[in-house]
């Protein structure tokens, strides 16, 4: 019983990391059909945002509320990755709708650019740049409308960009002078140190549940619930689904498909940012942190059935449980009297490398029989 429970917990823990990482892709790839190879780098940006937030919380003034940095990091990571995602959609992807191959190549290029960006640009300046961009884009929205209607609207716009740029420079300079560690470009991986309450494990009837894993599971559940609510209950969520199901009809009915595209991509990217907060709890944060998740993300979305959130959830947990069952050699402990030839095969696959091979092979075999995944999209074809 305990064995089964531990195995299940481990499977869910591995699965929830996959799920939180793949959730954004399930939106972007699943609903919009965009193959975004820069998804991993959006996760990375979220992780770096967490790191920056954590550094800011380490300043003496904020020390007492250090424990709460995650609560700030999650929305901020959502915003940072979301904004970068929106920029990406506006500048690159929008021009390539309907050309999957070009999208794939372009987003791959973007992913390389983003990786090299974090390698070569000091964190302090990057933070300043992000602040400037966020402010620059949000100021025209926040400013009273009549200011922008006047003949000098251009001046106001230019002025707001100037103010944003200044704020960015100030932040960069301020951070660089306060925390020397982020003042120079370093390709070295950085580490997010979780507060005390988020480290260690909870012991329960002889089993230890690592707290970071529990936190990730909670983040994942909240993210899944949030996005399900948003898609099913909110007005914009319904519009997104409408556009997914029939773009031209939605367009005719007065839904701004352009806005829907931006919103969908922004939310998908923002979710990648939240994934970044989650993975920063497990390992270090570096330029390559996203690349290690991207393959798994696509695997999960394809296995679950493109365009089906529930499928993504199930596929993540299936892969998680399988990885643990095979990789940790649990089959042998569950069934100790396994015949010797079988046992030796199971033992052979009971290493992390071979388990990964085995899981991928199983997925390939499964997709031979059900090419559209666990839950294929039925009914009217999406965007034929």
């Amino acid at each position, binding site marked *: 019983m305990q064995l089964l429970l531990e195995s299940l917990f481990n499977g869910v823990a591995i699965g929830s990391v996959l799920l939180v990482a793949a959730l954004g892709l399930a939106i972007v790839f699943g609903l919009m059909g965009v193959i975004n190879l820069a998804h991993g780098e959006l996760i990375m940006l979220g992780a770096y945002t967490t790191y920056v937030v954590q550094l800011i919380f380490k300043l003496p003034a904020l020390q007492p509320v250090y424990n709460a940095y995650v609560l700030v990091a999650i929305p901020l990571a959502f915003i940072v990755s979301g904004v970068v995602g929106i920029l990406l959609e506006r500048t690159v992807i929008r021009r390539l709708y309907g050309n999957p191959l070009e999208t794939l190549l372009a987003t791959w290029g973007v992913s390389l650019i983003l990786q090299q960006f974090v*390698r070569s640009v000091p964190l302090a300046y990057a933070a300043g740049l992000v602040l400037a961009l966020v402010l620059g884009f949000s100021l025209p929205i926040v400013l009273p409308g009549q200011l922008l209607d006047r003949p000098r609207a251009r001046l106001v716009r230019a002025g707001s960009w100037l103010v944003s740029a200044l704020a960015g420079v100030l932040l960069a300079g301020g951070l660089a002078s306060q925390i020397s560690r982020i003042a120079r470009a370093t390709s070295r991986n950085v580490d997010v140190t979780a507060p005390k309450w988020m480290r260690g494990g909870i012991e329960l009837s002889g089993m230890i549940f690592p707290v970071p894993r529990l936190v990730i599971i909670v983040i994942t559940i909240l993210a899944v619930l949030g996005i399900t609510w948003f898609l099913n209950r909110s007005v914009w969520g319904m519009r997104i689904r409408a556009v997914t199901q029939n773009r031209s009809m939605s367009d005719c009915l007065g839904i701004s498909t352009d806005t829907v595209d931006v919103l969908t991509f922004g939310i998908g990217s923002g979710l990648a940012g939240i994934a970044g907060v989650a993975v920063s709890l497990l390992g270090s944060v570096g330029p*390559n942190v996203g690349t290690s998740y991207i393959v798994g993300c696509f695997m999960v979305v394809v296995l679950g059935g493109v365009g089906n959130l529930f499928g993504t959830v199930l596929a993540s947990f299936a892969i998680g449980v399988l990885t643990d069952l095979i990789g940790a050699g*649990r089959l042998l402990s569950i069934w100790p009297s396994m015949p010797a030839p079988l046992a030796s095969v199971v033992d052979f696959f009971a290493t992390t490398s071979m388990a990964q091979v085995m899981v991928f092979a199983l997925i390939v075999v499964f997709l031979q029989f059900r090419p559209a995944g666990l839950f294929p999209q039925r009914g009217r074809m999406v965007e034929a």
Partner: protein
Amino acid sequence: MNVSFSKRLVAGFAATAVGVSITACGGGDKTANTDFDDTVTVGILHSLSGTMAISESTLVDTEKMAIEEINAAGGVEVDGKKYKIDYIVEDGASDWPTFAEKSEKLIDQDKVPVVFGGWTSASRKAMLPVYESKNAFLYYPIQYEGQECSNNIFYTGATPNQQSEPATKFMFEKSPAAGKPFFLVGSDYVFPRTSNTITKEQVKALGGKVVGEDYLPLGNTEVAPIIAKIKKALPDGGVIINTLNGDQNVAFFKQIQDAGLTPDNGYYVMSYSIAEEEISTIGPEFLEGHYGAWNYMMSIDTPASKKFASDFKAKYGKDRQVADPQESAYNMVYLWKAAVEKANSFDDDKVREALIGIKFDAPQGPVTVMPNHHLSQTVRIGKITKDGQFEILEETDGPVAPQAWNQFEPSSKGFACDWTDANKGEKYKL
């Protein structure tokens, strides 16, 4: 070692084309230090971009520092002429074929007499054929798995018997987990697999037990299954030998602590690729109480060691650290200088001959170049402290002779390497 040098395989070599190359500093004489008669240009080849840049750029820093120190002290003296050392830095870009390509460029185009370079075994394996075919010279500064002994490479890092073997013995005999079983964890590539093969044989010979091993594919940071296996295999604690690479260490140490595999609960990790730099990246709070084994540790309390550390900090910033790989890189520049002066020539064959037997007072203590192109070095075992340094618990009495061919691994047992004897060479039976 007492074999006369004349017995060496000199015959055809003198005629071989790869000659000495001293690039005159064309037109630059006005700015050049007038104390120097000429300039010699050496090659530095490390990754300045890509995943390995993090580690390898520190070696470039150290090599530059050594070169500048030598220049400040009067440069290299050959044939009564004083040479200023100049360098060309090439980027291997964390890509192994690029290392080979850039080596060819340095040798053929820039005509450097020596290249200091490499970090990963994969990059070394890619460069080796280039240096052998051109009879050129590579100095390689990293502790590695051994099982190689090229006439064209000088290895200034530790061989397994200068790192993992004393470490395994220490863990089995003297650590708090003495006598307990071992579990081996590594990244899935050549160094951890070879190193662990040796460890398994050694633990068996010591009378201990290895109860499991697992390898994490490079780039993968999901260590939950490995932790489950360790818990199952070592229910009452034990020794974990860790040869994970780079950032996989962070995931591993963070998560074993969360899972309760801590020194307090009887789980002790001995790591072979965690030096001071890595400790500060991972965070000492995750590593406190675990172990490491190196030839050089920043906490060595000798004037030479302290000077090395303080010079480096003075040059590159006070938050910088020095660690074993950097010390190796530093040593090799000085060893090359000493060999050139002893040979009184930049000629590869003469320098190679002169190198054997050269002694150098390194920051770690005295080192000597041995006939198998490796260094005899002191081995230290340290426990990681709160402030991210090693508390040195054990130190060999003087330098340990390097074994290029491992004596625990069945395929190389009973073999050795000796380039001073034409009849022995790369691999001969003892």
